[in-house]
């Protein structure tokens, strides 16, 4: 009986999480320019208008560039640090991890402004590269968390066996370490990409004249007539995020399941 109430609660909670966001796609297909009930009819004209907008396409391309570069660099940094933290006994590991995790606890507005001050002080011009810098600060802790979890389930004796069987360090890495780490690396790439792709505030301060997609989205909010097109854009960004996150979660948990079972038993 108690379980049934919990299930009802869980379903209601899920509805609370998802329903508000679902109004974006719903009204993006509504024929009226106003975001209001009753719905007036089905249309795809807002999507047509969206894809005819060259500024939007430029922002999309900017976001893809920033996202890909950020994902690769932050995953690389996370990989090196995760290996150092899990496979060596270093003094000050806790301090280093606390420092790297700090951005989780600092408001984005402070991160963005502080980096903006530094760039202004050394006279570094704002561009997509500076957005990448800001996003590295935000994404590296995520990459590290995902990869540390993967390394901790990593059986080092497999590497030792490879070395005993005569493989050198490089071949051991390619034939043993890398394949075992691949799910973690893929999940980290996907999650850091989507974090960067969706990030607004830091990009808002650091992007200069090269708007990323969320910054473009923000700039369009000033024009009420553009609202349906903005909704269409939002719906597409949401769809892309959901697909990538599901992919990342499935990849990340592949091969971890047996371990979880032994913990649960």
């Amino acid at each position: 009986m108690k379980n049934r109430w919990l299930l009802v609660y869980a379903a209601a909670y899920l509805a609370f999480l998802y329903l508000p966001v679902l109004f974006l796609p719903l009204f993006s297909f509504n024929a009226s320019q106003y975001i209001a009930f009753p719905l007036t009819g089905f249309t795809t004209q807002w999507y047509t208008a969206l894809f005819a907008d060259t500024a939007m396409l430029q922002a999309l391309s900017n976001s893809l560039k920033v996202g890909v570069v950020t994902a690769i660099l932050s995953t690389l940094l996370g990989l090196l640090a995760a290996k150092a933290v899990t496979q060596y006994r270093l003094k000050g590991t806790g301090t280093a991890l606390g420092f790297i995790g700090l951005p989780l606890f600092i408001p984005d507005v402070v991160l963005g402004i502080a980096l903006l001050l530094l760039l202004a002080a050394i006279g570094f011009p704002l561009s997509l590269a500076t957005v990448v810098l800001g996003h590295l600060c935000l994404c590296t802790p995520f990459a590290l968390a995902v990869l540390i979890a993967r390394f901790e389930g990593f059986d080092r004796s497999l590497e030792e066996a490879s070395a005993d069987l005569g493989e050198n360090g490089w071949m051991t890495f390619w034939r043993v370490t890398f394949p075992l780490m691949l799910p973690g690396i893929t999940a980290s790439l996907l999650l850091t990409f989507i974090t960067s792709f969706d990030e607004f505030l830091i990009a808002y301060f650091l992007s200069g004249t090269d708007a990323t997609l969320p910054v473009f989205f923000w700039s369009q909010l000033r024009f009420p007539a553009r609202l349906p097109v903005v909704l269409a854009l939002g719906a597409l960004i949401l769809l892309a995020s959901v697909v990538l996150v599901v992919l990342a979660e499935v990849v990340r948990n592949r091969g971890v399941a047996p371990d979880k079972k032994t913990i649960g038993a």
Partner: protein
Amino acid sequence: MGKSLISGFSGGVQVAKAEDGNDAGYLLLSPTLAVMALTLAAPLALLFLYSLTRTTGPVLEGGATLAQYAEVLGREGYRALFWRSLGISAVVTLATVALAYPMAYFVAFHAGRRKFLWLIALTIPFWTSYLLRVFAWKIILGYGGVINSALISMGLISAPLEFLLYNPFSVVVTLTHAWAAFAILPIYVSLEKIDRSLLEAATDLGDGPLRRFLRITLPLSMPGVIGAALLVFVPTTGDYVTPTLVGGPQGAMIANIISVQFDRVGNWPLGAALALASMAVVGVLAMLFVAAARAAAKAAR
């Protein structure tokens, strides 16, 4: 037994190796630390320097002064804004954690074979665009928005409800929704770690479900609850997007006034002092909260 022996043995080997290989470990860690120093430590240090300067423009000169902090602490308007930000965040934290706990409990103990699906469903919002989740509430709560137009077209009200948008209420609702996923995961992890045999033992010794929950499950999940509370309280006090989109003048928070100081006409040193003072206040409150929660947990045992 055999397995633990082997892992103990290889652990011993690892220690011996680690003694020689520590330099390699630090070398592996250094690029990440260097990037974080450049993008996090150096900017924050510079922000601190700016907060000690006198000039109002974007120039670093003159001796150090605490004038900006005096201004931050002295002016009534800033204090009111601080209190409002902290109050909104406290309500949001309470609501988020209280709503998330039963959800996390359900997934940890009663989701059965569907656990993985539930976890994915709860994780998706965590990674999707924060801006869009906040924006959704703007169109829901708006004057001519989803709720008002639905109620009017159903004939339940004749004029739009004005209290829905542009006040602290709309900020609290939006933040509670936007940060929900951040609270679930830490609580879930701490519930998942609880040794199930402890619960069986409590039942065997005659505890009913409620007593068992209060004496075993809740205390053991406190680390997750504290973590969730911090993960929501600390960043929401400095949130910019939500108060800007749905707050209006009555729902403005500290981040709005910080960012204003960094416009072309703004006062950079004052903005820096505001940013650091707010982080310091939140940091001190967070530490007090953790200490109080730990003391309470100890007393409960």
